[in-house]
């Protein structure tokens, strides 16, 4: 068996230690790929190309397969998110209870569509398939806070708080 040198992390950033710990815990096995990508996204907020290369080398999985998994699953993003994120749920219950109006209000007020970030990088607008809080639809998640029974004006006001100053 050819012994390869242990690949080194893309930078000295301490967060790579968390990623390495995840791979170590799974014995550097290829099947830990998705778990590892989760740990990168959790630590950095998105998957960057250098990180994918590092994971491919560490787990000895072809880079194409790593890239394939990173782009196949909706949960992973390769775009850096804004400082704050606002995720509008577009599940069925939210959809029929007015989620499209929330998105329209955000576009009108801040000029961003789902997946986009305002130019100053303060706020990203995202959508989720369903966050499972259907009984209080329509729902949006502001950073980690789930807020239900939202109207378009509440939505814009809450997002505005993030945009003006650091919450």
């Amino acid at each position, binding site marked *: 068996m050819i012994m390869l040198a242990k690949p080194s992390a893309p930078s000295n950033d301490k967060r790579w230690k968390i990623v390495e710990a995840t791979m170590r815990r799974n014995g550097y096995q290829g099947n830990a790929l998705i778990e590892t990508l*989760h740990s990168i996204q959790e630590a950095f907020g998105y998957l960057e190309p250098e990180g994918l290369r590092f994971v491919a080398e560490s787990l000895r999985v072809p880079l194409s397969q790593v890239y394939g998994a990173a782009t196949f699953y*909706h949960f992973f993003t390769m775009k850096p998110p804004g400082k704050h994120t606002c995720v509008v749920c577009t599940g069925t*219950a939210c959809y029929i209870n007015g989620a499209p109006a929330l998105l329209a209000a955000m576009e009108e007020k801040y000029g961003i569509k789902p997946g986009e970030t305002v130019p100053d990088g303060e706020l990203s607008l995202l959508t989720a398939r369903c966050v499972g809080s259907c009984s*209080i639809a329509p729902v949006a998640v502001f950073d980690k806070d789930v807020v239900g029974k939202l109207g378009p004006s509440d939505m814009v006001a809450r997002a505005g708080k993030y945009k003006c100053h650091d919450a």
Partner: protein
Amino acid sequence: MTPEELNEIAVTEKEAQSRFPHHVCVCTAAGCLSAGSGEVKKALAKEVIESGMQHECKVKGVGCMGLCSAGPLVTVDGRMYQNVTADDSTDIVRSMEDGKPVKRLECNTKAPFFTRQTKMVLENSGVIDPERIEDYIAADGYSALLNAITEMRPNEVVDQVIKSGLRGRGGAGYPTGLKWSTVAKASGGAMKYVICNADEGDPGAFMDRAVLESDPHRVLEGMAIAAYAVGATRGYIYVRAEYPLAVKNLRTAIRHAEKLELLGNDIAGTRFSFRVEVRLGAGAFVCGEETALIASVEGKRGTPRPRPPYPAQQGLWGHPTLINNVETFANVPVILRKGGEWFSKIGTAKSKGTKVFALAGRVKNTGLIEVPMGIPLREIIFDIGGGIPDGRNFKAVQTGGPSGGCIPEAHLDLPVDYESLAKVGSIMGSGGMIVTDDSSCMVDVAKYFIEFCMSESCGKCVPCRVGTTHLHNLLEKICRGEGTEKDIATIEELCDVVRNTSLCGLGQSAPNPIMSTLNYFRHEYTAHVKDASCPAGVCITARAKEAK
């Protein structure tokens, strides 16, 4: 851990609980949590200490109580309060001192929402603290597992499940006992696996999430019993990353069960060993399909493969694998505790037991309900659900999510079971039940679901990848008021092709929402095509633009 030791824990826990004359349970499942129950719990705990009642009153966080639309929910010595805020804590604590309930917060538990339900899978939900294994053990938890592995042979366990008539709660309704016996008989080398499908990707469904958040040990116990019955030693729970609280509670539960040696090597001094790991999904609806789920657990893209071979013969890493849904496993402990025969007495001739539904959309009482199989849809929507709010009229109920169909008023007296729902063009599905009223346009609803299937199609087979895109484009055209009668005919033809030629369940069922709406609400399609108008006023057709 022997059965005697388990019993000792149960007795000690019950004694410890009975030392408190008052019990305050705060729902800390996702629905109430987002309505602010975390603050309520803190305020109540603080208030109890400030009024010097910490030795008489126990405040604990519990799982989902069901009526999510009235959250945060709190029970005080069995009395339920709704829409509780942190400011109400003073009054609630005082009510325990003077014995007078807080009238303004009272929730009517004599209402049909509560009385028409039969709780089996959810029996502990909203009652026990999901983060404490002792609380689960005090509610007879893990007794079925220890009894099975010390007193029963694996085939006797399978027999009980066969006798119960339990069918897969993921939606397709495959007989669980039959699946178990196939895996038990499979001889595929040394390893066998048990996988719990908790990838609840169906939008509008939150049953599995509630079970995992409220009673995670129940699922672990069910999995362990299954593992013993089929001869597996390793298990995986594939759970959505979008459910952080469920993941957290599950991981805690696994750690606690391992500590008490209810999971691990040589459980209860027998030669049965079973370990469980959590695997996170990453937001792909197709991973609910069993072969795609297996690919994802293996760390690959979640794409399905043709069956046979079925996972029961060749599953995870090529080994025989048993895959069941969360709710299916959650039914197992109670079946073993009370017997398969007892279970088979609940429900209808072909659909046994109860079903958990996530009731949402345009209905007064939204939340989590558990009803016996065979209950009419009308009873669920108008009695339990309390009917349609804002004086509007019922239009349709959508079951089974993107794989299901819309059922109109005319079929509301149908009993809820696998066969009846299939007969009217829908499916039981995993349990999402979304009610729509006359403010919804059914063409728009069909477009919503096909848009979902289009973007969730994994792209492996052509009928699904290309077919769903074309269907979506045609429906968009109709919604814009630019469609023709010929487009409707093309849609019908395409639906037929996609349904009959797709590789997996996603594509095969993707046309269901369109076909059922075309069947029952064709006049809405015709209005879009002939008059370029949307009867519900949802779609922005050419005529609607003119009117503006």
